[in-house]
Structures are given as C-alpha cells and as structure tokens.
C-alpha cells in the first residue's frame, strides 16, 4: 500500500470515530474482580465516611441476589464481572487538583482534543457559556468556574468532593430517587460507583451557566460507574449537559451510570445528554455497553424535569430516563433521538409516573436505524389513582435506512384514574429514495442528503437542546450515519 493510501485510510477511520484515541497516562487501578474487599477498597481510596461504605456494601450484597435483566430487545454475550477493574484513576501530582494548573497536561490535552472547554478563559472570552466537570475514567479531574458558582451558593463539582464538603446533602438525597435495590445495573453502580458530578442549586437561584459533565473512559478493562446527583431546591433552575466518549477498543467496555435528579417546589431541571461512546466497528467488535439508570423526581408542586438525549454511540444502549411526577402540577418531558447503525442495538425510552394532580408529561422519541442495527422504543406511562386530571402526550417515530435494520415500539400504558387523558402516536417511515434524489439534484451527495433528512426528522428534539449542543448533535448524527446508504 502506498503511503498516501494509508493516510487516506486513516482519515477514513478517524471520521468513523474520531474520539477513538487512547491517552497514555499512568493510572492507579484496583486489580480486576469484585468482592466485598474491592468495595471496601474503593471506599477507602476515597476516604469515605462509614455510612457511605455501608450503602455500598448493602448494595453489593443485594446485587449478589440479582440476575441481569433479560427483557430488553438486545443481545450480547454474558459480561464477566470478575474480569473488570472497578477503579481507575489517573495519577495526579497532588491528591486532588486545586486548579487547572495542577491537572496533568496530558489530561488537559485530551480534553482539548475532544473539544471540551476546560480553560476558563474560553468562557470569559465568550466562546462557551458552560461550567464543566470532567470525569476521566473513574474520577473527576477538573471543575471549572467553581468559585463563581459558589458565590451564588451553587455547589457543583465531583461527587467525591461533595461527599467530603457537603456530606449532609449527599446523605439526604443519595438513593432517594434510584434506590440501591432498583435494578441490576443501578445496584452494581451503588456498590462500586467511583465518581461523578454533584450539583445543588439553592432556593430561588437560577443558575446562570450551563453546567456540564464530560465523561471519558480511557483505561482498558475498566467499567465506568459514575453517579450524578442533582438537586434543585425551591424555585431553582438549572440546565445541565452531559457528554461522553471513549477510545476505540476491540473488547467491550461496561458503562453503568446512575443519575438522580430532584426538583423541589417550583424548581426546573433541564438535563441534556449527547452520548457518543464508541459504538464498536462495522462487524460489531468492541464498543461500550451503556446500561444506565436515569430518573428524576418532581418532588414539589409546579416542578419540572425535562430530559433531552441524543444517543448516537455505544454498542448497546439500555436506558430509560424517567420522571416521577409527585408534586401537583408537575411536568415531565422526554425528548430523544437514538441513532443506531451497523451492529448497534438500542433499547431506550422513558417512564412517566403520574402521582400528583394535574401532572403533565410529554414524550417525543425519534429512532433511526441503519445497517443491521436494532432500535427499540420502550416507554411506560402510568397514571396512579391520585393523579386527578393527568395528561400525557407521546409520539414515537421511527425511521429506517435500508432494509436490514429494525425498529420496534413498545408503549405500555397503565391508567388508574378515569380523568386521565393519554395520547399515543407512532409512525414508521423508510427514508425516501425520492427525497434523497431531490437533495442529490440540488447538489448534495447522498450522505449529506441522508444527514439532512434525518436532521429534519429529529428537529423537534434538537430544538430542545442548548445551542452549542444542537450543532454538535447534528454533526454527530452525520458521522454516525456515514456509510449507511449505498
């Protein structure tokens, strides 16, 4: 092969997954395997208080009694939980970086490559209006804007810091939305979670910045089990972004995160995710298993929680961001785009549980499958006896590209109050040859045409995303659909 050929081949694979590089960094890892000693060791490394170690151990013991869920429409070989390492931390100069200057330059370079603004000057220069907490493998490596946020009483940073600095808050809220017994992966996470983000917005404060966590898996054979806990106190408002990437590796990597959101009276939380974990290669080799439990609790009256997700990565996605609408007049929203190409599988959707009076929920789901991928929407709308005048509107649209992929919709509806109004609409379309030709005839090549048409299809979801994210999401969509036609 000539050198030029090699180069062009490189750019091709780069395009396929441009975040596939590995950072060469020393890390402090626990040996593979899972038992009570490992759970204790994780807790010790992090100098955790006794109650938290107990929480972990309870979860671990419960996990031993559970079996992996089998109901999702995904297929994968059994995960060997004993072969995984449950803790990996990049070695730092100091124990915890106090400012960006203390962060390993290799790490900063990694985030720069990923296009994540960790330098505060970028924000000051008006380039980005986000405060970022970056999580590398298991630990949070840098949080920007901590000081500015502190002045408003906002706590935003790594979960570990929160355990040290605000143990009472963590103790009060941890596990109150996703109990440690919730499900197989959430229970596992409760036992071995390493780090993640914590965020508390005090009464009446409207957070002036987008808060963002950026997750990156680097180490091989490591599971990433981060834990996010976000509390908006009475009347508080916050918009939170989450992005994720991982290196390209031949073996599958496990990601089992838990996210808990709590909205008190009159509070509003908007949580957006752009998930772009490595999806594996064309033949289904490698890729992330993304088994995530995300749930929001509209605890107070008139509260609102809105989930927006754009899922383009991962070999397997198993994820149902949900809302428990407990407060009267509370509102839950779920906007989702899930793209699967090649051998990817996604089983995703939401649960809306109406408990309070006049609670409202909206579900907009767009599933796109190409190649031999399988894409499933699974959603539950439950209206409990107490939920007088509950309203739900669900719309689930699927788009197929080619004829070897599949789209499936499983809407479960469980209504226990006669005043409820529940509406469900679903469509499945094949991307039209005539639409592609129309775009071709205006000068767009077929990949651009498909990206354009799919972007149009996802419009209702993309417009819910914060500006910078929407642009990113559209680009990602184009990248993940590359090679899906022709």
């Amino acid at each position: 092969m000539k050198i030029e050929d090699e180069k062009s081949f490189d750019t091709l694979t780069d395009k396929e997954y441009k975040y596939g590089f590995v950072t060469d960094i020393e890390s402090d890892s626990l040996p593979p395997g899972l038992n009570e000693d490992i759970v204790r060791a994780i807790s010790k490394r992090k100098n955790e208080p006794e109650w938290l170690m107990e929480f972990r151990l309870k979860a671990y013991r419960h996990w031993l009694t559970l079996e992996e869920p089998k109901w999702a429409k995904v297929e994968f070989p059994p995960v060997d939980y004993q072969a995984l390492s449950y803790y990996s931390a990049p070695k730092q100069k100091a124990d915890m970086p106090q400012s960006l200057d203390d962060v390993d330059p290799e790490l900063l370079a990694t985030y720069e490559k990923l296009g994540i603004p960790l330098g505060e000057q970028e924000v000051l220069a008006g380039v980005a209006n986000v405060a970022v907490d970056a999580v590398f493998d298991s630990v949070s490596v840098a949080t920007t804007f901590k000081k500015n946020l502190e002045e408003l009483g906002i706590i935003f940073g790594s979960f570990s810091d929160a355990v040290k600095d605000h143990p009472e808050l963590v103790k009060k809220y941890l596990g109150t939305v996703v109990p440690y017994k919730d499900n197989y992966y959430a229970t596992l996470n409760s036992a071995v979670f390493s780090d993640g983000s914590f965020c508390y917005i005090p009464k009446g404060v409207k957070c002036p910045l987008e808060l963002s966590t950026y997750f990156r898996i680097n180490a091989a054979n490591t599971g990433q089990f981060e834990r996010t806990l976000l509390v908006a106190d009475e009347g508080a408002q916050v918009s939170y972004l989450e992005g994720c990437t991982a290196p390209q590796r031949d073996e599958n990597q496990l990601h089992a995160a838990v996210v808990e959101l709590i909205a008190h009276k009159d509070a509003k939380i908007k949580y957006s995710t752009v998930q772009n974990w490595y999806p594996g290669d064309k033949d289904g080799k490698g890729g992330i298993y993304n088994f995530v439990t995300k749930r929001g609790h509209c605890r107070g009256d008139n509260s609102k929680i809105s989930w927006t997700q754009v899922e383009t990565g991962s070999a397997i996605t198993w994820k149902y961001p949900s809302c428990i609408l407990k407060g009267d007049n509370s509102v839950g929203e779920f906007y989702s785009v899930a793209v699967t190409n090649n051998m990817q599988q996604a089983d995703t959707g939401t649960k809306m549980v109406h408990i309070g009076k006049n609670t409202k929920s909206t579900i907009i789901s767009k599933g796109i499958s190409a190649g031999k991928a399988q894409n499933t929407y699974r959603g539950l709308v439950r209206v409990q006896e107490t939920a007088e005048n509950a309203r739900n509107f669900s719309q689930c649209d699927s788009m197929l590209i080619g004829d070897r992929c599949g789209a499936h919709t499983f809407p479960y509806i469980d209504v226990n109050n006669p005043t409820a109004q529940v509406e469900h609409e679903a469509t499945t379309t094949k991307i039209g040859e005539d639409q592609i030709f129309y775009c071709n005839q205006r000068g767009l090549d077929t990949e651009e045409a498909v990206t354009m048409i799919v972007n149009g299809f996802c419009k209702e979801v993309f417009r819910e995303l914060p500006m910078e994210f929407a642009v990113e999401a559209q680009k990602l969509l184009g990248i993940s659909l590359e090679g899906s036609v022709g």
Partner: protein
Amino acid sequence: MALLEIKDLHASVADKPILKGINLTIKPGEVHAIMGPNGSGKSTLSNVLAGNEAYTKTAGQILFDGQDIDELAAHERACAGMFLAFQYPVEIAGISNMYFLKAAVNAVRKYQGIDQLDAMDFLDLVEEKKKIVKIRSDLLERAVNSGFSGGEKKRNEIFQMAMLEPKLGILDETDSGLDIDALRIVADGVNALRSPDRGFLVITHYQRLLDYIVPDHVHVLVNGQIVKSGGKELALELEDEGYASWVAE
C-alpha cells in the same frame, strides 16, 4: 459546443423500456420545448438526464457540456450545472427552505471551486433572487415544500433554479398547477434567467406557457421517441390537432 447532446438514448424503468432512441441537441442560449401525451416518457427523460438511479440507461450517450454524463453521479450533475424543476417536488420535513438552499448553493460552489457563501452573502442573494419569482418570505422559512400548495411548490422550484444559476434548466410541467397570474410570473422569471450561455428544456402540455417562454425548438415525444420537431408554430398545430395521428398506429 453543444450544452446537451443526447444520442440514441434508450432507458427503462423497472425493466420496462420507456425511452426508445432519443436524439436531441441543445446549444447554449436555446430553449427547447417537449410536448407529448401522458405516459410518453417526458419525465423519464428528465430523470435519466438528472441521474435518478430508479431509471436505467440501456443504450446511447448523453454529453453534458462535452462530458459523458455516465461519469457523474446525480449530485455531480447538479453541481456541474444541471437543474431539474420537478413535476412533483418532494417534501422534506423539519428542514427549512432557506437552510436547504444554503446547503445546496454551497455544495455547488464547493464543487465548482468557488468560495462558500456566509450567512450574510447568502441572505443578499436570496433578496435578489426572491424578486425574480416573487416568492413569499414565509415560504422560505417553512420546511422544504411541506404543506405548500401545488402552485407554491412550482414557484419554489423556479426560485431554487434562480438561486443555483444552472447551465441547463429542465422544467418538467412547471406550468401545471399554476394560476394565470402565477404562470406569467414564473414565465417572466424563467425569461429573466435566459442568457446566451444557458439552455432550457421545457416540458409542458400547454401551448399557453410557450406564449410566454418562446421556444426555439419544439419536439413531440410519443411512446419514447421524438416523432416530430419544429419551430414554435408546431406547438400551435398540436393545440389544434392533438397527438391522434401518432398515437393511432
């Protein structure tokens, strides 16, 4: 050099032969009209020219601007300056007309090695071209052809043509569905785009369009073949006599 040269073109759709030996040459600056009964192959011809993969060219040769068109994919033909105003323009949900056109204009410019238009320059171009077909601004903000009336879709096609400034404009029954005033406006628009280096192939059923867009040549397409060619007066003859003498056999 001819702008378009079609030699003994045969083409089929779904294995069914439709075009059976078409010969046609369009020189820069010329307007050619094609008339013919329903199902005779007019839209098939425009699709084959534009490179729609649902249609198969089985024999013959097409040269566009001197280049064998077989070498070019549909989008490359468009970028090289061929524009098809569709008989039935398709809808694309969720993508605004403006966004779509900006992508199209820049794709063509990129192919031709011209600088991309930024948002401001693009808007200036839109303002200039809007006048040509008097298209309403709200149609430009709406999703491509979504919920447009039949006439609005046709007008939008000509607006797109004005924006893309092609070398060859193929108009497939652009007049069908237009009201009397709109017909005049659209025809004026096309006339405004006529120039010594641009050619047009106008497919129509009605002589009236040709009163406004006066053709240099008129061809009668019946059953996949051009059975008669002549000057603009041929259209008048057809208006009187129809296609009976050719279809009868």
